[in-house]
């Protein structure tokens, strides 16, 4: 099947928000195909609609019109529980503000997606430790997020995103809150995952970051303006 070639397909997607009496097109008719194993960078200024597009790809939001397919599955046809399962099993999220759970240690944060999936404790712990090691932060395992630097928190977040072996990583300005050095560490780790076969869609406004990508899509006012 053709669609099996693609990790994500976005077909003429529109997303309309109502602001007061006005309707705002955050995404205004975007079609985009992300190949499996591709590293795609979505660039645009703030308010261009890039984050909305990422949320649509991440099944966190539903398009007003158009379709989003994840590995050939039309997610607009799925119910609440199935969407949750897609997010849990197929997608990994990395956010600008890391969004770690403050009451849990680094180790437990990585464990959490597996707990939600119902992975047995032993397996969970083994995988969490392994991921923290890959991210080079196994020493911070028992520390709470508030005791970690931004770079370390983001590495925990990457480990958490990878916990259930997703095929797609969705990253929203992952280096936005980091200094150049830790930003590079984080980007190298993401690139490493991409080289292992994980599809990466990354949203940024930083041109340096786009150098990591196989393909860059530029967005303005909810439309694709340039592909390179």
């Amino acid at each position, binding site marked *: 099947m053709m669609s099996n070639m693609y990790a994500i397909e976005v077909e003429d997607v529109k997303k309309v928000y109502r602001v007061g009496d006005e309707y705002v097109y955050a995404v205004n008719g975007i079609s985009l195909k992300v190949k499996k194993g591709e590293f795609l960078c979505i660039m645009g200024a703030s308010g261009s609609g890039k984050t909305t597009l990422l*949320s649509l790809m*991440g099944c*966190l*939001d539903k398009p007003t019109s158009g379709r989003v397919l994840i590995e050939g599955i039309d997610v607009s046809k799925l119910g*609440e*529980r199935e969407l*949750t*399962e897609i*997010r*849990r*099993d197929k997608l990994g*999220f990395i*956010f600008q503000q890391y*969004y770690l*759970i*403050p*009451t*849990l240690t680094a180790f*437990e944060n990585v*464990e*959490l*997606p597996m*707990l*939600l*999936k119902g992975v047995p404790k032993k397996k969970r712990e083994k995988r969490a430790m392994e991921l923290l090691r890959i991210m080079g932060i196994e020493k911070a395992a028992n520390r709470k997020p508030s005791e970690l630097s931004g770079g370390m928190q983001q590495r925990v977040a990457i480990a*958490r*995103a990878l916990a*259930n072996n997703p095929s797609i990583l969705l990253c929203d300005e992952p280096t936005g809150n980091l200094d150049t050095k830790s930003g590079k560490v984080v980007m190298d780790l993401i690139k490493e995952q991409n080289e292992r076969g994980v599809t990466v869609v990354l949203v940024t406004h930083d041109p340096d970051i786009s150098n990591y990508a196989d393909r860059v899509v530029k967005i303005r006012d909810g439309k694709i303006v340039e592909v390179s």
Partner: protein
Amino acid sequence: MYIQMAFRNLKRNGIRTSLAIVGIIIGVMAVASIGIFGANLKATVLSNFQNITDEVLVYPAYSAHVRHGIATTSGITYIDKRTAERIVRLPYVKDYAFVKSTFTTVKYKNTVFGTTVYGMDENSVKKMFNLKSGSFRLLGSCIVGYNLADRLNLRVGSKLDINGHVFRVSGILKEAGARFDVNPNNAIIVSLRDFDRIFNLKGYSFIIVWVKSLKDVQLFKESVDKTINSREKKVDVFELKIIIDQINKTFNFVSNFLMAIAGVSLLVAGVSILNIMLMSTMERTKEIGVMMAIGAYRTTILKLFLLEALILGLIGSVIGAVLSLLGGYAVDMAILHSIKYLFSLNTVFYMLEGMFFGLLTTLISGFYPAWKASKLEPLEALRYE
């Protein structure tokens, strides 16, 4: 791990959590303490009546006599001797006492006063009452109750003039508890024969019957209706057990009413839990969004918040129940001056009941915030500032 998460979330705002728990503790304690006190109060009151449950009173059936135009004034209504003999020969009767009574004026020295005079068998008096001084000898003499003797300064040997007949006081009774048959504290007791001599009453005012066992009360009643009352209703049978049942009912009602009032404090605790859990869901909106983004079902979020409420409720209820033992002790000592009934099955029951209501309150109050949290939209929750 979910339980661990719930605990940590509660610890996050320790003071707020502690205050909510204190609310539950107070509520549970109030409900359980009052329940315990109510049960103990009932037990104390009932203990005064313990020995009368097998007692049955047989009265003349006033209505029947009125219908036949005989009994229009009191004092004539009585159970005639033949009927009385038949009653006490019925099965189930273990023991009995014939009683005659009337209200009359009595003269002592220069004082004239009105009082109840009972005519009773010496053995019955011995069985039912205790003597303070003197003896139980009734023939030609009388026995007086504690209060009467106290009021008039009567002594063994004092002479009373009852309706023109002079009786020597042979004994003075100890103060007796409240009874439903014979109340001797302000009365004079003479022998049945002397009573007849003074008042010329043919039958008995009532008969006290002691049945062999509690379940015989009903059988005795039925047997009276079948034999004595078969043609016309001659006597009424009045079981004292009914009084016990009434006391039970009344105290249960009072106790439940008081508990309902105490329940208001639980209600307040419930509202405070509702409040803190709502605040907590607001503060954690972003976290809920993250949980949903990484794959938590709505039901998982719901469960996590309910778990927190459950933990609050469990801690509060258990501490409250334990403290209610102290509360029960304090109230018992203050009002009943005794903790005789504190350590009983009733106490355990009310402790459990308090805990149950404590838990119920927290779960009900926790449900709305938990439900609200689970209904958040993942993206909106993530973007919540």
